[in-house]
């Protein structure tokens, strides 16, 4: 579903991403681990075609993101570290707007049902989003992805700064989606979360993918040890 082939990005000669090869089939949750500046966000930006690749290709559902920038986005949903909403609109109006821009019109009742589905309490949909906590915003982000019927998710540290309960709820929602065949690429700092909700993890360092492994085959302690080994210069 998501595919990177020798994907490379240099900013003014500085390597941000170095020949990344990655394939994420439907139903897989791939977690990108690594320090700040390792190339995680760059990878996501390349899939979103927000920045041009220096070399290599990023494909979504078999389509090159640079030649079909709008079409490839129909398959994906992007959730940033902090989902931003229009503060003069209510939660429901925000969800409705983002869904509509994603190409799907819903009745009010369907949107309210989505609010329940992502675990938001009754009544919040008609409040202006200024009152929303970060956890609620991230759930709206998932709601947008569901409403969009996205077949792949690009997540950029979506749980950082969330309290454990909210982070756990977020991971549960991710699991539900991946069980329905959604491919997920998630950049994160959170080893625990990666082990819990990821099916595979990749460790990145200075733009290079230095290790990948399947989470079911490795314990949490091993993952942490491996990670620290790679981070060690």
């Amino acid at each position, binding site marked *: 579903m998501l595919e990177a082939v020798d994907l490379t990005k240099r900013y003014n000669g500085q390597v941000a991403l170095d020949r990344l090869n990655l394939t994420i089939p439907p139903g897989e949750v791939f977690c990108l681990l690594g320090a700040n500046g390792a190339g995680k966000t760059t990878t996501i930006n390349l899939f979103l075609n927000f920045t041009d690749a220096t070399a290599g290709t990023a494909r979504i559902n078999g389509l090159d993101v640079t030649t079909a920038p709008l079409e490839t986005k129909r398959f994906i949903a992007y959730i940033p570290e902090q989902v931003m909403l229009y503060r003069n609109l209510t939660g429901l109006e925000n969800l409705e707007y*983002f869904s509509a821009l994603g190409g799907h019109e819903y009745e009010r009742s369907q949107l309210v049902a989505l609010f329940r589905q992502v675990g938001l309490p009754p009544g919040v949909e008609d409040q202006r989003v200024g009152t929303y906590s970060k956890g609620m915003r991230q759930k709206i982000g998932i709601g947008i992805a569901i409403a969009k019927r996205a077949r792949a998710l690009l997540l950029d540290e979506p749980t950082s700064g969330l309290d454990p309960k909210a982070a756990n709820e977020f991971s549960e929602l991710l699991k539900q989606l991946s069980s329905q065949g959604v491919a997920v690429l998630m950049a994160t700092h959170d080893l625990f979360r990666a082990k819990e909700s990821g099916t595979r993890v990749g460790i990145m360092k200075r733009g290079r993918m230095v290790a990948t492994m399947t989470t079911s085959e490795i314990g949490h302690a091993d993952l942490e040890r491996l990670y620290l080994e790679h981070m060690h210069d």
Partner: protein
Amino acid sequence: MIGRIARKEMTEMFRDGRFQLASAVVVILLLASLGAGWKHYSDLKTQHETAQRAERVNWLGQERKNPHQGAHYGVYAFKPKSQLSMVDTGVDPYVGVAVYLEAHKQNEFKFRPAQDASTSIQRFGELTAAVVLQILIPLLIILLTFSAFAGEREQGTLRQVLSLGVGRGRLATGKALGVAGAMSVVLVPATLVGVGTLSLTSMTGLLAVDVSRTLLMVAAYGLYFLVFLALSLAVSAVSASSRLALVALLAFWMVNGLIATRAFSDLAGYLHPTPSEVEFDTALQRDLADTKALNAKLDVIKVGLFQKYGTSTLDELPVNFRAISLQEAEEHGYAVFEKHFGDVFDRFEGQNAVYQWGGVVSPLIAVRSISMGLAGTDFAHHRHFTVAAESYRRTIIRSMNDDILVHPTKAGEEYLAGSELWRRVPEFQYVEPDASWALSHYTTSLSLLGAWLVAAAFVLSVALRRINV
């Protein structure tokens, strides 16, 4: 999808206190200026109509007198106020709208050839609807648009929106429609209600608007607003922050509205200087007093008449030589007035031509010229009326002199005419030229306004491609 984006933008704006405040201020100013324009218009219109009727009654009611005294009695001619003059008073306040028509003199209006030598006639003074449309609405557009992209980028929503697969062109179109829609929702009803109420409650009744001029004016302002909308969106798309976008747009607004207009006014005055009133008068009087050619011509005519009628005294001529001499003196005056007024008028038109080129840096200058032209309050209409009034003056004088001509008198006698002669002079009727005539003076401005729109659209399309996510 575009409609969807527009609707969301409008919803956001309507809920924004700043929009509510700004649009309330603009609506109040627009209504106040329209109200003032209406008051001014209807007062003047009533006064002019009353005065014009009274003038006619006075003219017809003259006692028996020599026709030349009738010519001296004279009449006032009033330039009819167009309905659109309530929107744009143009140069009317500077050049005047009434002229006294009498024997021997082509009077000036309240028009003084550059009494104000340092400033040209296009500067703006009072608050009119035109000022609101030309200066304040662009400001409102800037305030509503500067954060369209830059603000969403700062807010973080831009990445999310673009990640949904929304085309940038569609996004920009939706935002533009949103701003246009929000402004229309506020301004259109306010204008309609304002104009409607005023016209229903006023003495003059419903407006009998010149439809083509009005529609053209609406179109010209519409294009002008579009230029601002597109430029604001473009600047917002490429600016590093919404703050910078605002600063850049306000700088353009200042150049457009304050600096360029003043600079090109001054440049026009510098390139086509007009004489001071004293200089103008002195030169005029000098040429009028130079009657050598006139006297020589009269002598030739006199000798010709003496030969034709075989006589050597004026008293024995079958025609009244005084009429011939009066008419020839008028003809001498016509030539002198035509030369001097024509020269000053040509200079004003030269100034206008230079000023219009200011449209290269300021779309305001282009739309202001077009607006004045369509309102019938520009210099071209003033000149058109001046020529009509002068031609009417000549009709009066010719009628008087023709009557004297066929009533020869002996020395010491005086011929007196009565009401049948006064009636023979038709009433002054002025027909305002049509919209295409009005626009024919502003081909430069029309082209420049069009060029601005094309350029703004181009800049926007480039800016959208360079948008920084």
